[in-house]
């Protein structure tokens, strides 16, 4: 990832099509995954990433040379790209994968690296810290590893100094906030409180359909997406069993002993 000339920033925003956050998840009958014939939308953390890229441009104006949205997924994932374009991305890349294919984080990271080689250079990659479907939370870190570049994960604030070629990122950690400065090119993963994404306005939705969208296949990029993991079984969490009220501490201790939680006579 070679940086573009100083004072110009190209941003890549990878987005994923997920089961909508409001949908009640159900395990499928074969226990191989969840029911997918439900409403889908952009992974909420990726929406935050798109919003942050658009806000960077609103702040830095012409210093942001371009915002590219990229998705890896079946043909329907194109809707997710249109949403990113309607929010303010300039162009989009769709790496189309077979309908039922599972693309693991490492394969995603490799595909993203290949897209960056082909379409880049990019100076900044902003993506969600995790996708709400598999909750792996690995893609950003793996991509930084593959590229050998800086990473700042779980960002709750992002400032870019284009001239200096650095980004200041505030991260939410246990017990406080951590501020780090990374050299561009860098990978930033978005946490929940980074911003509140806008709703795509109607004029922007209409404009989005005229923005360029390039389609690629994993083969075009020379990446093998064969899964390395085998899904054994997916089950729902056990149903919560109702609790019981006790009258006093003695009764509680007696019950705990009986249940074998505390040592003592059963």
């Amino acid at each position, binding site marked *: 990832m070679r940086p573009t000339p100083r004072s110009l920033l190209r941003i890549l925003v990878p987005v994923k099509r997920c089961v909508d956050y409001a949908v009640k998840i159900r395990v499928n009958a074969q226990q191989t995954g969840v029911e997918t014939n439900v409403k889908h939308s952009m992974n909420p953390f990726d929406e935050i990433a798109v919003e942050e890229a658009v806000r960077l441009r609103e702040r830095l104006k012409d210093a942001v040379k371009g915002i590219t949205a990229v998705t890896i997924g079946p043909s329907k994932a194109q809707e997710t790209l*249109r949403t990113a374009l309607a929010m303010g991305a300039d162009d989009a890349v769709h790496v189309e994968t077979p309908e039922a294919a599972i693309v693991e984080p490492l394969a995603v990271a490799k595909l993203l690296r290949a897209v960056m080689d082909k379409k880049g250079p990019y100076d900044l990659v902003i993506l969600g810290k995790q996708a709400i479907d598999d909750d792996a939370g690995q893609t950003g870190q793996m991509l930084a590893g593959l590229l050998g570049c800086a990473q700042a994960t779980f960002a709750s604030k992002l400032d870019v100094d284009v001239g200096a070629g650095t980004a200041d990122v505030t991260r939410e950690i246990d017990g406080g906030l951590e501020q780090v400065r990374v050299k561009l090119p860098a990978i930033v993963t978005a946490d929940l409180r980074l911003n509140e994404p806008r709703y795509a*306005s*109607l*004029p922007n939705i209409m404009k989005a*359909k005229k923005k360029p969208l390039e389609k690629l296949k994993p083969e075009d990029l020379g990446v093998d997406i064969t899964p390395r993991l085998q899904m054994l079984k997916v089950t729902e969490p056990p149903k919560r069993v109702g609790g019981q009220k006790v009258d006093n501490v003695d009764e509680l201790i007696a019950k705990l002993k009986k249940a074998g939680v505390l040592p003592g006579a059963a």
Partner: protein
Amino acid sequence: MYRTISTTAVRREPTLNSLSTFTDEEEMLRESVRRFAHDVVGPKVREMDENESMDPAVIKGLFEQGLMGIETSPELGGSGSSFTSAIIAIEELAKVDPSVSVMCDVHNTLVNTIFRTRGTKEQQEKYLPRLSEGTLGCFCLSEPVSGSDAFALQTRAVKQGNKWVISGSKMWITNSYEADIFLVFANVDFSKGYKGITCFIVEKDMGIKIAKKEQKLGIRASSTCTIAFDEVEVPEENIMGGEAAIGQGYKIAIEILNEGRIGIAGQMVGLAQGAFDKAVPYTYERKQFGKAIGEFQGMQFQMAEVATEIEAARLLTYNAARRRKEEGREFLKEAAMAKYYASQVAQKAAGAAIEWCGGVGFTRETGIEKFWRDSKIGAIYEGTSNIQLQTIAKLLQKEYKQ
């Protein structure tokens, strides 16, 4: 009725999709409006209803989202989208608040459309950008003595030099409290009867006075006022469509109301669905006699029936919208049917929703009863149910009478 049908003409095979198939843009618009309605409008619905006033932040939000110039071209500050998109936006807003929905509806399907289809180039360039970007418009036809009999209107316009002087009053004017641009129908020559009716573009600061803001049963956040015109002077270039359109007001009004009905149908469909969506989940939570009330057959069948009727009303509405714009076909009967039926379904669905939730539905806190109050207007404005039936009946007579 026995006609021979000849279909020798070669026609391009149309793409046959279901009525609930939408373009990507329409789907994105629906999603975007849904979220706006839920996040921005939702928390204010009760307060706006109780205060009988529209929150300015909601109006501002509608403009910012590009929902106040849906069909206006981007060159004039609009969104450059379709009539069906307008119907979708109106429907989605009504699911959360029918008051906000009607504000968007009147502004788009009546005011903007008249400018787009009837205005001169100068009028379009002067007013459409303002109407897209932040100025609310309203449509002033009804008067104390002329409602369904709209062309009996008494407001007069008299030419004095290069101005027209308008005197009279208008009643039941939606959006008028917040509006700055008024489309006013006045008669310039009573000797010609309805052919004297002319449409004027009047700005509030030309001297329009709000005489009374009505207190209503439903859609209380949407303003409805009586407006007085006390010798309001309007420049002659403000005749909608220019000099040549003097006496064309009746045509403008009839045509716009024919398609405006589809918007109200959309509002009523959204209202019905909003009430249904609020009430039905509760029936699976509330337990009586050891099981969820929604699992009793008496409840199940009521809900199934209402769901079917909402679906039917929705399809009538989408069909009328697609015929009108996307296909440019005759839509008069379909629009009247959609508006008539959707307003009936809205009232039934909202009424049933209250009953399904029992006492909880009857309280103002849950907002279910509001849908029922809001539904009543559907049978009244933009052509009462009787006027819709009359329109349908006239067309039937034309079709069937030998």
